[in-house]
């Protein structure tokens, strides 16, 4: 699969005797939105951590546009184009909303080591940050401290940080969890648009079937750390393995 933007080959991680991610081989093409589903503890977030580098893999490779990035640090992978948003809100709480986004744009432009200029004098950074905030409809909260934001707005900012990074691989971990009902569609609309830029792919860990049905071009199912199914949404949702491993449980709970 030479046209894959991101690929994992036999990607595995063990914690003691427990295999959290088990030889996952999968390729993600540009322009595609892939939903990753599976019951809790299936290894979805761990799979994300292996790709973005928070956890080193025990075995296997992570390829970005054919290049093995498995040995690189988190920051180095970010600069190559791996972008990650987090399931649990993971922001800079003491700084303003605008500053959170500005920091991302500043990183992308490699300006972190600018020592003797005034941060506020870089208008282009501020304007780019304001544009991103407008896209997630947080423009009015720009000067507020993150710690003072509502949970839903913090979730939106979490998405905004990833959008501001403009990575080649967008990785969202339950982006709309905890968001108000009327705000989720705005964010989903944004995510839907991201894959349409050339040379980008979107990975999405998600539980909500309506979100998956609306956004995903493809679903992969993880079960006990291993790849259990991979295909178009309607096929996968209908397959036995998903009914049993995932949806069956969801129905019982629902």
């Amino acid at each position, binding site marked *: 699969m030479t046209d894959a933007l991101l690929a994992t080959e036999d990607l595995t991680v063990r914690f003691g005797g427990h295999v959290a991610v088990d030889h996952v081989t999968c390729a993600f093409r540009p322009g595609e939105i892939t939903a990753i589903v599976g019951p809790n503890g299936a290894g979805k977030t761990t799979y994300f951590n292996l790709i973005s580098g*928070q956890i080193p893999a025990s075995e296997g490779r992570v390829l970005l546009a054919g290049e093995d990035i498995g040995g690189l640090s988190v*920051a180095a992978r970010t600069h190559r184009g791996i972008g990650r948003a*987090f399931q649990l809100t993971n922001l*800079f709480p*003491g700084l303003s909303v605008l500053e959170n986004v500005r*920091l991302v744009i500043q990183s992308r432009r490699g300006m972190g*080591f600018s020592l003797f200029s005034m941060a506020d004098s870089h208008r282009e950074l501020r304007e780019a940050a304001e544009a991103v905030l407008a896209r997630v409809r947080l423009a009015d909260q720009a000067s507020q401290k993150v710690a003072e934001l509502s949970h839903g707005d913090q979730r939106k900012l979490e998405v905004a940080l990833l959008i501001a990074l403009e990575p080649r691989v967008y990785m969202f971990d339950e982006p709309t969890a905890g968001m108000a009902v009327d705000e989720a569609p705005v964010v989903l609309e944004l995510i839907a648009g991201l894959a349409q830029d050339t040379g980008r792919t979107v990975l999405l860990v998600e539980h909500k079937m309506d979100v998956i049905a609306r956004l995903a071009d493809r679903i992969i199912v993880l079960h006990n750390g291993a790849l259990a199914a991979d295909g178009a949404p309607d096929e996968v949702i209908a397959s036995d393995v998903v009914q049993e491993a995932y949806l069956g449980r969801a129905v019982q709970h629902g």
Partner: protein
Amino acid sequence: MSLGALISGDRPRSRLLAAALIAILIGLALAPFLFPGTRSVDTAARVCVFIVLVASYDLMLGYGGIVSFAHTMFFGMGAYGVALASVHLGRGFDALALGSLAGALAAALLAALIGLFSLRVRAIFFAMITLAVASAVAVLVSQLSALTGGEDGLSYRIPRALTAAAKYADGKVLGVRINGKLVNYYLVFTVSLILFMVLLRIVNSPFGRVLQAIRENDFRAEAIGYRVVAYRTAATCLSAVAAALAGATYAIWLRYVGPATTLNFEIMVDILLMVVIGGMGTMYGAVIGATLFVVAQNYLQTLLAAAGAALAPVPALPLLFNPDRWLLWLGVLFVLSVYFFPTGIVGRLRQRQ
């Protein structure tokens, strides 16, 4: 250059704070004229140097969230740089410049080494390493007495142009002799002012914002592409260089260095207190904290003596206000200030708006 650029856009955000800062600036700028006398000018010079020393520590602690116990070591490296250069090269401005540069460079190298070695792991480990290295250096300095003068320290001569022997005008101006000592004070004042403004610029630069981001959430800072170790190490180096230059300035003023004036762990504790009293992560806190603390250190005894004399007719009380009790009262002041101003004086003033 506009005022905004001079203070790097970092507005005091409190009228009272702005007034206090202006008062301190004027007080220090005119100290030899407003407070004539050797002792008060000495105190003013010490305030200048400690503002820089505490501000450079705040860069690391308040902005970078890095706890270090080696700050007096870096301070001492600058001071000993000047002392050793003056002793071995003979008195002269070249010795002062070379000594300052060598001290700052050595401080930067040692900071980089400690940083790269230990900032990868947890913050507490870095704090422990700095404590160990600083203790080792302090012992080394007191043992290598052939080179460093040991516990006695080193006295040396500085250029005549900076001493009281150099007269620049006949008689007095506003009751003050215009001599080299006055020039020396203004050297200390100017260098300190410039260093403080540079530090203020650094914390308000894109780099300063990254440090704050790392302090807030190092995990996410890494995930948006900042190499946390590199930034923490850089902050430690910059802080060390500023501390070393403050030490060099102090050495030029004192014409003496010794463990007690530069390397002592007590000074390290003083720096911590000044940062906390003034307000961490504010830079202006360093100005307020250092001024209050150094002035209290120098004048609390005098104040207590006066209070003791006034209370002489009352039984027992004079004992409490005995000048020897000044450390007790400094402790009481510290406890009160931390209790009433947990975010420091600057933090408290900004809350009031």
